[in-house]
């Protein structure tokens, strides 16, 4: 049997719950309809001769609206979830109940995983201090995840909070609160030099905003940083790109195609950055803690669990 209250979300996926539906909520529809009724009742009240066609039509409309309002009132507190969120929750249900997950690996996530430690090294070298990845998983009643790096200038290790451990996962109280000056950092390894420098001009990615709020909640951090790192792409991934290019260019014998060989050289250049000073290969973006966002996250998780319980077979 599926206990929906035990369904927890990873910080990287929390943003998917935060999408607001485009349509009006059932409550808003109810309130709008009440207003329409009041307006029509007021109009009706102003008509002196109730036998006129106008008055009779209005009366009829008023009755219909009253009938609609009965149902609207009963449903006004119904869950109001965006279609995209509903789709995501159905995937989560499949994952929770049937242990099957969608394969979301792309060349971007593959690079990220493969060069994560190299990115931390770059971060470490630029800061001039030794930094290690957390490598510990933490959970509270709502979210579960492994933050990349947690820095605490007071040297209060996250684990010295005397947390309990269950199956290798540290249990964090929901109300951990804020530990002064604690900083959680999430490493992002850009796929190539162009996507890297775009971070200077783009707005903060909303997925990352929610991800960091979740990590701050989980670690008691007072603030967070996104660390975009520009790291050489592993040769295997560059080789895959070259192969894709070969197919796209219709080249069967690379040795006979100077254009293809030139394009491969460009690919190599696009994916290696040893000529760029390390300081220029790190972009840091501060993300302040937002407790109201954390509260909103919590309520969306509760709503999501309720939706699964009401719409899927949890037996």
């Amino acid at each position: 049997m599926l206990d929906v209250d035990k369904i927890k979300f990873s910080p990287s996926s929390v943003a998917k719950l935060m999408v607001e539906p485009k349509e009006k909520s059932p409550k808003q529809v109810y309130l709008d309809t009440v207003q329409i009724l009041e307006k029509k009742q007021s109009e009706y009240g102003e008509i002196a001769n109730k036998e006129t066609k106008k008055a009779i039509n209005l009366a009829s409309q008023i009755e219909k609206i009253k009938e609609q309002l009965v149902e609207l009132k009963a449903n006004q507190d119904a869950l109001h979830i965006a279609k995209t969120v509903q789709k995501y929750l159905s995937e989560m249900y499949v994952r929770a109940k049937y242990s099957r997950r969608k394969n979301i690996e792309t060349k971007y996530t593959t690079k990220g995983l493969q060069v994560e430690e190299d990115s931390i090294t770059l971060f470490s070298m630029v800061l001039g201090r030794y930094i290690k990845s957390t490598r510990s998983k933490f959970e509270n009643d709502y979210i579960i995840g492994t933050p990349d790096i947690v820095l605490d200038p007071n040297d209060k290790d996250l684990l010295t909070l005397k947390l309990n451990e269950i199956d290798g996962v540290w249990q964090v109280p929901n109300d951990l609160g804020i530990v002064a000056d604690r900083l959680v950092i999430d490493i992002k390894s850009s796929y190539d030099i162009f996507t890297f420098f775009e971070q200077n001009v783009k707005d903060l990615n909303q997925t990352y905003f929610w991800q960091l709020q979740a990590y701050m909640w989980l670690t008691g951090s007072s603030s967070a940083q996104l660390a975009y790192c520009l790291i050489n792409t592993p040769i295997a991934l560059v080789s895959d790109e070259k192969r894709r290019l070969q197919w796209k260019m219709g080249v069967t014998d690379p040795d006979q195609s100077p254009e293809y060989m030139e394009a491969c050289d460009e690919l190599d250049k696009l994916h290696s950055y040893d000529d760029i000073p390390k300081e220029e290969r790190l972009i840091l973006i501060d993300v302040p803690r937002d407790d109201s966002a954390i509260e909103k996250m919590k309520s969306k998780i509760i709503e999501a669990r309720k939706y699964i319980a009401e719409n899927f077979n949890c037996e």
Partner: protein
Amino acid sequence: MSNLVQNQPSAPITTKSLFARQDVQAKMQEMLGKRSTSFITSVLQIVNSNDLLKKSEPNSVYHAAMVAATLDLPINNSLGMAYIVPFQNRSKGIVEASFQIGAKGFVQLALRSGQFKTISYTEVYEGQLVSENPLTGFEFDFTKRNSDKVIGYASYFKLLNGFESTYYMSTEQVNKHALRYSQTYKKGYGQWKDDFDAMAKKTVLKLNLSKFAPLSVEMQNAIQADQAVIKDSETMDVSYTDNSDAKVVTINIEDKETERLKRLISQCKTTDELEILLPEVGDNLQLFYQEKHDEILGNLNR
């Protein structure tokens, strides 16, 4: 990173259980009709007969089988049309199944297109290559044979509209091709090592077709899927794991952390900077740390 973690045990998925799923069977039924059952049976038999394939990631077996089903090529080692071959992906630490078409499979696909009058391939023995002209082509006399030494491989096709093409590669050229495109051959094992002849014939046939023949959509997909690990058979997202000229590196986090610390130690200019790192220094870096410490002190004393 997982989208969702649930404290419930997840049932291990095997190739057998994957193919037993109703949706998989329905998909196969949709593609192959009455032959779907025997096709699935043949896939499972091939997996069971190969220890490495048994360890292969089930999804990779599934997608390779799906490509074979899409191309309507039987997966049967004795028929030589299509194969599912295990590949050890050392960078990921897993075994993956890759899809391979045999020379006979390419012939089958070519004939199905209805455009070919003749298509064939052969090894060429010493004495059989009469002339080589880069402009007018090759001339062979297969009645002559000076020895059993194979000097090259050739393929030929003729279309119904009269167009014909002969493609020849010497054994040295084929060997160079194999070394370039197969990392396993470079290391001394794999398909090329086990059956150089068969792979050579397939190569000249495949190159002849892809360079000179009108390719049906089926044939284009076949060429793309050949010798690839199929990540998604519907979108033809493939990865040529044996093709990669990457040095296979297993990411060891401890090694990376040691390297990081070493680099930081190297860039220290004062003993104060160095002492900040001391708590992190393990036995493996004690000597390195001490040498740096001495170097800094030595510089101060000058």
